[in-house]
């Protein structure tokens, strides 16, 4: 900036231009402080990641990924049934939450004013703030206690309740960001409101909706509390959603609080798998969002 052109001495300037040095210093101070805080935040994240990788990477091998847990004293064993269980429980939860969440989001985006939509929004915000253990308890009271039988489905139901508010609000937002001119263009061709939404507005909002879905899945992937009294856990290859089922984060919990060093090592391995899964989901979400942004500005 300080080229030969701007070689005007500070003292020659009118008073209102003076004090540049102090402003420059303040700006430097502020920027430096912000940078420092950002580094602290990044460092603690990296520390967690690094620690989990260091502790967990030793536990990960083929047997760990594909075998069921072994009884105490029998070496080896794995979390294969937990991985499968996670996929089944989260899969069923997604299948239930996606249509309900998406259609509710469409409803709010299209007919978003009035008492019913406003109360829906409020309820959805409340639901997203309810602790997951309370939602697990609700699923227990509704789907476990009456049948006196733990089940993977009750866990899916709890996960669905956790995903719903996220999906509702984010798909509403995604649909709202589609320009009104695009929607009016469709209506002006004589399309019905519903068809204009499904055929024109929704595809335009799709990348953002997929992003929201991936983030919602990532959110429940890390949940443990609702599983304690719904899926309950299992030592076996269990694929029937009507029965208790193993789940990865639940296994991490059980192993971590056990007194056996071999199980504790496996807990770190499981934790690493969970972090990798969430990392991949978040990365996928970011890539989708970047694509969506490009698509809109193109």
């Amino acid at each position, binding site marked *: 900036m300080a080229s030969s052109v701007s070689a005007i001495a500070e003292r020659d300037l009118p008073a209102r231009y003076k004090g540049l040095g102090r402003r420059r210093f303040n700006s430097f101070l502020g920027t430096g402080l912000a940078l420092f805080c950002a580094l602290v935040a990044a460092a603690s994240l990296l520390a967690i990641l690094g620690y989990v990788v260091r502790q967990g990477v030793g536990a990960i091998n083929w047997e760990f990924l594909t075998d069921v847990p072994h009884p105490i004293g029998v070496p080896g064993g794995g979390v294969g049934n937990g991985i499968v269980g996670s996929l089944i429980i989260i899969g069923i939860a997604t299948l239930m939450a996606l249509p309900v969440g998406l259609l509710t989001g469409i409803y709010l985006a299209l007919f978003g004013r009035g008492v019913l939509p406003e109360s829906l929004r409020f309820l959805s915000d409340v639901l997203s703030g309810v602790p997951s253990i309370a939602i697990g308890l609700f699923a227990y009271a509704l789907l476990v206690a009456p049948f006196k039988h733990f089940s993977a489905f009750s866990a899916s139901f709890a996960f669905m309740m956790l995903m719903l508010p996220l999906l509702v609000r984010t798909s509403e937002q995604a649909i709202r960001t589609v320009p009104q001119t695009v929607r009016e263009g469709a209506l002006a*061709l004589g399309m019905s409101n519903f068809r204009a939404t499904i055929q024109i507005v929704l595809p335009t909002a799709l990348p953002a909706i997929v992003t929201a879905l991936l983030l919602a899945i990532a959110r429940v992937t890390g949940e443990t509390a609702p599983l304690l009294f719904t899926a309950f856990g299992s030592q076996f290859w269990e694929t029937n959603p009507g029965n208790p089922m193993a789940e990865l984060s639940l296994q991490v919990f059980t192993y971590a609080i056990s007194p056996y060093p071999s199980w504790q090592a496996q807990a770190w391995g499981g934790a690493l798998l969970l972090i990798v899964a969430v990392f991949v989901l978040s990365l996928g979400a970011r890539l989708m969002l970047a694509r969506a942004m490009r698509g809109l500005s193109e």
Partner: protein
Amino acid sequence: MTAVAAPAEILATDDLSAYYGEHKAVGDVSIQFRRKAVTALIGPSGCGKTTLLRCLNRIHEVLFDARVTGRVLLDGHDIYATDMDPMRVRRRIGMVFQRPNPFPTLSILDNVLACGRHGLTREQKLQVAERALRAAALWDEVKDKLKTSPLRLSGGQQQRLCIARAIAAEPEVLLMDEPTASLDPIATAVIEELMCSLAKEFTIVAVTHNMQQAARVSDVTAFMLADETRIGRLIEVDDTSKLFTKPRDPRTEDYITGRFG
């Protein structure tokens, strides 16, 4: 206010008022639109010309809290009658918007066919699309990339695509809301030429705040002005040549001679 004696009218409003919530944006407009002619709606910003246009295909009412009173007669039938389906109305009265709004996720071809010409074979659909694109003077520029995204086209091409999309539905009336507002002079000239040629087949009602454009493309011009309570009123409507040379209302004269607005 005087109406043009036009027996060949296709579209007419009768005491039409349009509201946004409590605010009346257009007040008591009665105007006839001549069949297969270009009618230009001119007037300063905020005079209600776009709102009036948006009442003619019932797109005004899709905005929250927007409503309309009075009648709009299409071939003598009120399009606001309770048994009139707005979707059918919009099929017969197409619209081109101020900014090109191609559907971003559809190909150029699918944009043109978006009005949903059901019961046609693939071949016939291609014919419909080609005819519409030719009529919109866009065919030669896009015939080799019909399956590509419309977002790669220039602004002027996108606007002609929107015109092709509107006329593929074979409407009787084509509404155009400042169709060249976002285009450069060359693209504007192309669209203006297009408006003149389309008038042989369609009835066109176009909003413009460019008086030269109104003079160049329209057969009839209507002048609107907001009154002291910000309600848009129709001041005068006449053959374009008469309105620009011998305006009857002093406010029209003030506007076209550049004394305000």
